[in-house]
């Protein structure tokens, strides 16, 4: 064989093959990431499961999550969230005013107020950006049975936004078992105090009782609106059920009880939402189940996620007048790229091309589009009441409001099981 042809067969052809491989890849290679480092977070845990997502700091919404994919043991990588963000923080004070809307008319936004973080604040962890910290940490038990156990891990990205005297810690926690916990920590300093005796029903005294002039820390709510563009296994063919819990009375009896006494038996019922609408925590132990109607696990059940309220209770704002959008705890809409904020959804708070979009989350449900097999966006409202304590001087001890998104039938068994 001539040297040139030998060179080709020995060097060129294999290299060419590798080049072609890299360009087209085998079918099993995961999709290329949608973002680059440092905005890409790609973590494979000790359990062998994996989260891959992008983050971005946006002026209004602050730390936003894009394209979050989860790989459980024994399952292919599948999308969970196309986009997840804080869509408003509504802070009405108990005396009636002020009534802040922190992402829009009252401040410059969570992103504009995001602080540069120091290395000690993010320790142990990595500053992906001066304003964003990523930490991978142990989360205690994933499960335990008798002497068997598995310890769990989670990856968290978080930022700190100084809005007036308040400091909001925006957290996105992704656990190795597939659970996602978005939450906001409230800290900083009390924003509003009052010295008029008339504040007494609306706050708590924070200066010494012996002082002639009272100083009241004024009570208020933080209603956090999260926007979850849940693309469970993809953007199409998603649906959502309400799962309610109620007393059950026989007949017929349960397999083990007559169910004739109050408090003896309990059932869960499912209600399928068919059109854009809203729902609330009007009954105890309500939660929701969003799933893909076309993809099932090995047991034949649709893959999905539960939305589980944590430490949340229903509360109405000025629903009859200025705040009609404050009447619900979950809004269900179909995807619309211009529907980004729960209130004041109009330029300059959203892009100029979006002029004319529905201006609040309640109005976004007005068209009543089909949501039973569609591309869904869920708006969850977490309500946190702040009644000031002495312990909040001079700096407020942090308290959190969040929600739990956890897999339901994502796999036919435990997501961590080898």
């Amino acid at each position, binding site marked *: 064989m001539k040297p040139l042809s030998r060179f080709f067969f020995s060097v060129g052809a294999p290299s060419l093959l590798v080049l072609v491989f890299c360009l087209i890849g085998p079918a099993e290679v995961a999709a290329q990431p949608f973002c680059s480092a440092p*905005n890409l977070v790609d973590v494979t845990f000790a359990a062998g499961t994996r989260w891959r997502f992008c983050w971005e700091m946006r002026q209004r919404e602050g730390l936003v999550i894009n394209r979050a994919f989860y790989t459980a043991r024994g399952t292919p990588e599948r999308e969970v969230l196309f986009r997840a963000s804080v869509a408003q923080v509504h802070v009405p004070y108990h005396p009636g005013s002020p009534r802040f809307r922190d992402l829009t008319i009252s401040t410059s936004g969570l992103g*504009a107020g995001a602080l540069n973080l120091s290395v000690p604040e993010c320790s142990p962890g990595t500053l992906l950006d001066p304003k964003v910290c990523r930490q991978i940490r142990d989360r205690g038990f994933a499960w335990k049975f008798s002497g068997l156990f598995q310890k769990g891990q989670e990856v968290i990205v978080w930022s700190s936004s100084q809005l007036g005297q308040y400091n909001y810690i925006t957290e996105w926690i992704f656990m190795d078992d597939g659970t996602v916990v978005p939450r906001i920590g409230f800290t900083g300093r009390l924003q509003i105090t009052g010295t008029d005796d008339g504040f007494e029903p609306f706050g708590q005294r924070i200066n010494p009782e012996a002082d002639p002039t009272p100083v009241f820390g004024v009570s208020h709510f933080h209603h956090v609106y999260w926007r979850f563009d849940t693309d469970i296994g993809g953007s199409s063919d998603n649906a959502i059920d309400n799962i309610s819990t109620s007393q059950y009375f026989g007949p017929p009896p349960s397999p083990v009880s007559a169910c004739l006494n109050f408090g003896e038996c309990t059932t869960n019922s499912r209600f399928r939402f068919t059109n854009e609408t809203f729902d609330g925590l009007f009954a105890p132990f309500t939660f929701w189940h969003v799933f893909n109607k076309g993809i099932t696990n090995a047991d034949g059940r649709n893959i999905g996620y539960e939305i589980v309220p944590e430490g949340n209770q229903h509360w109405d704002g000025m629903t009859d007048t200025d705040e009609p959008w404050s009447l619900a705890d979950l809004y269900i809409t179909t995807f619309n790229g211009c529907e980004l904020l729960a209130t004041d959804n*109009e330029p300059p708070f959203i892009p100029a091309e979006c002029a004319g979009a529905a201006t609040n989350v309640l109005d976004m449900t007005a068209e009543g589009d089909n949501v039973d097999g569609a591309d869904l966006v869920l708006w969850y409202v977490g309500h946190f009441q702040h009644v000031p304590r002495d312990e909040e001087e001079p700096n407020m001890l942090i308290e959190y409001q969040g929600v739990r998104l956890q897999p339901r039938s994502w796999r036919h068994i435990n997501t961590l099981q080898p």
Partner: protein
Amino acid sequence: MDNQRNVDKFLRLPYRGISLLLALLAMGVLASPVMAQRPLDPLTPREIELAKSVLLGDRRANQYLGGNSRYHFVNIERHEEDKSVAGTAERRADVVLYNYTKDETVSAVVRVGTSPRVDAMQIIRDRSPGLSPEEVEEAKQLALADPGVQMKLTAAGISEIANGSLIITYLFAQASDKADACSTHRCVLLYFNTREVALLSVVVDLSARRVHVE
């Protein structure tokens, strides 16, 4: 014959090495996540500057701003494309500019890829965007230079501003009362704190460049 085989074997080794090296190089270059900009990457400094120049060079924007408007770029960030075209559309920027001369806002969508141009532009008169870091800093400097603020800080024992003893936070201060200048002007509410206590609050009117101690 044996010698030829040995020679062949000897020659194959470097060929294999070169082959492996080329293959590794190809994989490394193609696998690099930084090589090509990805659709969800934030705007680069170049794209941000391009967005500004494209907007300022736009005929409508030019006509609106005129020759002597006092304006400020409040925010420029990546425009999020509709899901149906995400990842394939030309990159665009959401641009927000505040016109101090008229106390109005320009909100625009600008292409920053291969065909730069303004895709959408709105003039907004009844809603103001939040403050940029530069505007907040300007408000702080105006406040610190105000004799009324200085008197209050001195009375509180703050003699040296630069030593880090002062922590200043802020809120956007657009008033709803039409009689208040801050209902139409661009105003900032500043809170002055020490490490131990909140001291005072100050309203800075950036449009009129006035300071009011509360």
